[in-house]
């Protein structure tokens, strides 16, 4: 079978169905809509989509033929089979979105008529909506809305292939239309009642997310340090805490086994559902802070030590940790508050807890155990901790993103041989030594630091701020934070990773595209921060405009606005919008644009004549029309003739001689008289002889 058949009659025929330019817009829009999906779609699907759309385009050019029914069916079966094999029965929104894309790709092969064009139009519009489920940043929003605009231009080309004024006119027509409707869109967006979900649907994505995990092997966090992706952003009600106090606790790892730290507690698998994105409203109190977290697909939330939950989408659990009720599958905002005073903790650990935080593998790392025994002998708990930290500070330990491999007895070789490691190494080693010395200890994983956004309005915490440190139980003081990294590389804690590894030059060494890598170039830094601020405001006020924020906004308006009132208001906005549009068009017509009063009166007169059955002929003068009217309606004869004379004198005689408005007034009055007379005669004839009236109408 040869597809490379130049300009066959069939191809010509297909060309008739759809204008090439319209198809081009459709394909453009499709490729634009694929962009937000690129990171989640399997490569084979992207390749298949490009191939199918390209095939369609070549067919439009007449270079190849569209596949026949059999070939089309087999392509479809093949791709669907590949899809099913790849998906393997896991049905998530993610796989549904992929299937959607696959459907669009297959549809390209049978886009022959305008009908198919519309089908694709609908699917692509919905694809844009689906894209919003995964990406809500402002640039993705612009790309999605832009591709919808492309579709609308494509529709214009489809409906008028000879599109007057070219594409420029098409775009400006669309632009003007969008500008005109913008106020209504904004009003609807603000006032349309945000209802609770009608039914719950999981948005579980199979995509791997960058972020901390609930297991820690030495070297894990140094991978994260190579990513400048945003983890979360924080706005403080009062002043920001000092850099060295910005410890964002995420989870606690308390079980060491085979060199890996894990959570000992079984994290119950919750019923899948959407995370609540209602994150508290209103002005921030001085000690409160808002966290806008990127999706992690995990339940944990990050908080400063000693915080309490303010918004009700996070709950405080044991060990001073915060959890969402459902995995954070979309950007989620929550609100916490720092507690004012340090709470002295009087209670002591229960035997169970003590066992939990003293757990150690039975063998391994003999030198570290010996060190612990040695320390234990010489002093009490506080003394052990102090001595250990002094050891870190004074001996040549290095903080590095390029740690050596330490496969056997990693803690021993770190502490006594290599002395080079990242925060995860040191935290793990510290916890090990403390536990060996009989001090309950746990590894805390989270973030430390964060750079200020534009104008110090908020804090941006990125993946490379990921950090691990240790908390130890000191009788009488409770859990005390111990950060070996602070002893080894104070820079890391005071001003961040960039400074800490500046000598080594390993900061974001594999991430060429990240703006943070070029933090020393002022312009790039500035632009990146400005962009981040725009996105932050966008996420806070547009993306995050949901139930509670709406209710909060409404409660500030005068008059109690509830859900019901919002419903009425929305209906009102739609109605009023339509009404205003109607009124404007009616006024435009009535005033006839730039037509002057004379023309309007004249037109009204023509209409009257038309009603009586004397339609105006082309090029007829008022006088002739008047005489014809006089024949049809003798009662109007005098007024009509006078009217015609006055119109003539207005248009054909010296303007300055008369008062123009006076004339117009008289014409209007005359017209009114004629209408009255007409009504009177109408009534008379209908009363006397209805038949005659109808006869007059028919004539």
């Amino acid at each position, binding site marked *: 079978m040869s597809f490379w058949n130049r300009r066959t009659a069939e191809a010509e025929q297909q060309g008739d169905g759809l204008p090439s330019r319209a198809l081009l817009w459709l394909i453009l829009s499709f490729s634009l809509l694929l962009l937000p999906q690129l990171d989640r779609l399997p490569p084979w699907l992207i390749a298949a989509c490009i191939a199918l759309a390209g095939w369609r385009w070549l067919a439009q050019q007449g270079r190849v033929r569209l596949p026949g029914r059999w070939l089309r069916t087999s392509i479809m079966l093949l791709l669907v089979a590949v899809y099913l094999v790849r998906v393997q029965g896991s049905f998530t929104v993610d796989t549904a979105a992929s299937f959607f894309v696959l459907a669009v790709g297959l549809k390209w092969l049978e886009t022959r008529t305008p009908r198919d064009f*519309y089908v694709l139009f609908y699917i692509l519009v919905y694809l844009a909506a689906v894209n919003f489920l995964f990406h809500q940043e402002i640039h993705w929003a612009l790309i999605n809305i832009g591709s919808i605009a492309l579709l609308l231009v494509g529709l214009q080309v489809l409906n008028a292939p000879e599109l007057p004024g070219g594409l420029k006119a098409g775009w400006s027509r669309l632009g003007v239309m969008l500008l005109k409707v913008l106020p209504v*869109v904004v009003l609807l967006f603000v006032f349309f009642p945000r209802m609770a979900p009608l039914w719950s649907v999981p948005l579980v994505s199979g995509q791997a997310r960058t972020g901390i995990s609930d297991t820690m092997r030495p070297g894990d966090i140094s991978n994260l340090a190579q990513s400048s992706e945003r983890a979360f952003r924080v706005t403080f009600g009062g002043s920001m805490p000092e850099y060295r106090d910005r410890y964002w606790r995420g989870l606690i790892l308390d079980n060491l086994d085979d060199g890996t730290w894990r959570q000992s507690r079984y994290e119950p698998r919750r019923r899948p559902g959407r995370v609540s994105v209602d994150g508290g409203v209103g002005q921030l109190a001085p000690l409160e802070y808002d966290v806008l977290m990127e999706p992690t697909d995990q339940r944990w939330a990050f908080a400063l030590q000693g915080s309490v939950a303010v918004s009700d989408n996070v709950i405080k659990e044991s060990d001073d940790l915060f959890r969402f009720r459902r995995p954070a599958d979309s950007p989620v905002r929550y609100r916490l508050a720092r507690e004012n005073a340090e709470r002295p903790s009087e209670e002591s650990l229960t035997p169970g807890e003590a066992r939990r935080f003293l757990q150690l593998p039975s063998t391994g790392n003999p030198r570290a155990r010996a060190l612990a025994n040695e320390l234990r002998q010489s002093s009490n708990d506080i003394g052990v901790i102090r001595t250990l930290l002094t050891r870190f500070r004074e001996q040549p330990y290095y903080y590095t993103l390029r740690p050596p491999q330490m496969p056997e007895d990693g803690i021993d070789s770190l502490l006594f041989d290599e002395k080079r490691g990242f925060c995860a190494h040191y935290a793990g080693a510290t916890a090990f030594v403390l536990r060996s010395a009989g001090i309950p200890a746990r590894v805390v994983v989270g973030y430390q630091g964060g750079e200020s956004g534009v104008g110090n309005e908020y804090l941006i915490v990125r993946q490379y701020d990921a950090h691990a440190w240790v908390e130890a139980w000191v009788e009488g003081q409770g859990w005390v934070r111990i950060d070996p990294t602070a002893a080894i590389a104070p820079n890391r804690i005071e001003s961040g990773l960039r400074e800490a590894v500046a000598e080594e030059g390993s900061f974001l060494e594999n991430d060429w595209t990240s703006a943070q890598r070029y933090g020393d170039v002022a312009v790039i830094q500035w632009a990146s921060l400005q962009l981040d601020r725009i996105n932050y405001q966008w996420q806070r006020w547009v993306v995050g405009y949901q139930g509670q924020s709406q209710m909060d906004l409404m409660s500030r308006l005068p008059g109690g606005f509830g859900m019901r009132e919002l419903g009425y208001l929305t209906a009102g906005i739609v109605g009023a919008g339509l009404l205003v549009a109607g009124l404007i*068009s009616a006024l435009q017509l009535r005033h006839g644009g730039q037509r002057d009063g004379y023309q309007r009166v004249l037109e009204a007169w023509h209409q009257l004549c038309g009603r009586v059955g004397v339609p105006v002929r082309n090029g007829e003068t008022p006088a002739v029309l008047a005489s014809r009217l006089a024949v049809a309606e003798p009662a109007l004869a005098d007024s009509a003739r006078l009217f015609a004379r006055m119109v003539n004198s207005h248009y054909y005689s010296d303007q300055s001689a008369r008062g123009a408005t006076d004339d117009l007034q008289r014409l209007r009055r005359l017209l009114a008289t004629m209408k009255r007379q007409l009504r009177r005669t109408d009534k008379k004839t209908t009363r006397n002889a209805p038949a005659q009236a109808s006869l007059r109408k028919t004539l």
Partner: protein
Amino acid sequence: MRKFIHSRWQRWVNRRIPRSDVQLLTQRNLFILPTAAGVVFGMLLLIMLITGINYQNSLIYLVTFLLGAVFVGAMHQTHRNLSGLELTLVQAGEGFAGDEILFRLRAAAGKDDAVAISLSGDDVSVRVGHVPSHQSVDVAFPVPSAFRGYLRPDQIRIETRFPFGLLKAWSWMRPHSAAVVFPRPLAAPEVISAVDDGDEAASSRSPEGNDHAEIRPWREGDMSQRVMWKRFVRSGQMVVADWEADKGSPHWLDFNAFPGADHELRLSYLSWLVLERGKNGARFGLNLPGQVIEPDTGPAHVTRCLRALAIWGEEKPRDAFAEPHGTRSASDPAGRSGATSGVRS
């Protein structure tokens, strides 16, 4: 029931849009409704709204509202496409029955562009395309003709779906003037004329007293004068006397020269003859009952004769309730008044 609603609707439209050769499209006579694509689009918006509600996604709300507002904006735009447009029937054409008669229309845009407009009739449709504001475009609109006589389309639909094809705005033009459809030329058996040269009275010549008449049963198309009424009174049978007409002058084309043929057939013969004479440049006159055209030559004369043949026995349609074209064969149960075009007494 559907037929009833349809006829009521047609009557309402016809009242609203009187017959006129000039039709200015305004709100009074413009109609606008979503197309099928528009209805599906509305359902799509509903689905998107539900998606937005379910996933609590503000941006999906935003896009839904945006597209909804675009739909309303498109309504405005589609309406404005036609509003202010003036349709004028410049010339109602002429032609032979069975051909398509061209109506020349002029579309003059008002202060807005008229984009992607099309005209359509019962089974024809013409793309007019784009009329820039304050300019005009001439269109030839073909109307199929079936019978000779006056022809005017009952309604010419003018429609646009621009910009997005989600809505259609339309109106009708109901032309006042009618085209003239000549009888379809049929080769005449043999040219005979019963008219003597210069004898005008011959047109009223009657078959009475003609000896070699042949009696045959009445069939449709025979003139009532030729029915032998006396015999009808006697026997109740309608018979017709056929007779051999005198040979007349070849200069005259005579309506009465085709014995036994019905009127339409005669007119078709005559039409053919007129064309033939016209082609040969011969001099000829036309004799119709009630109308005589003196012998002459030239294309103007040919046209004049053809017109006379076309409208013989027809009345010029002028009222608002003219029958739609092509429905001459008594398909109109409404029993409209006698002033209709097609009904012959």
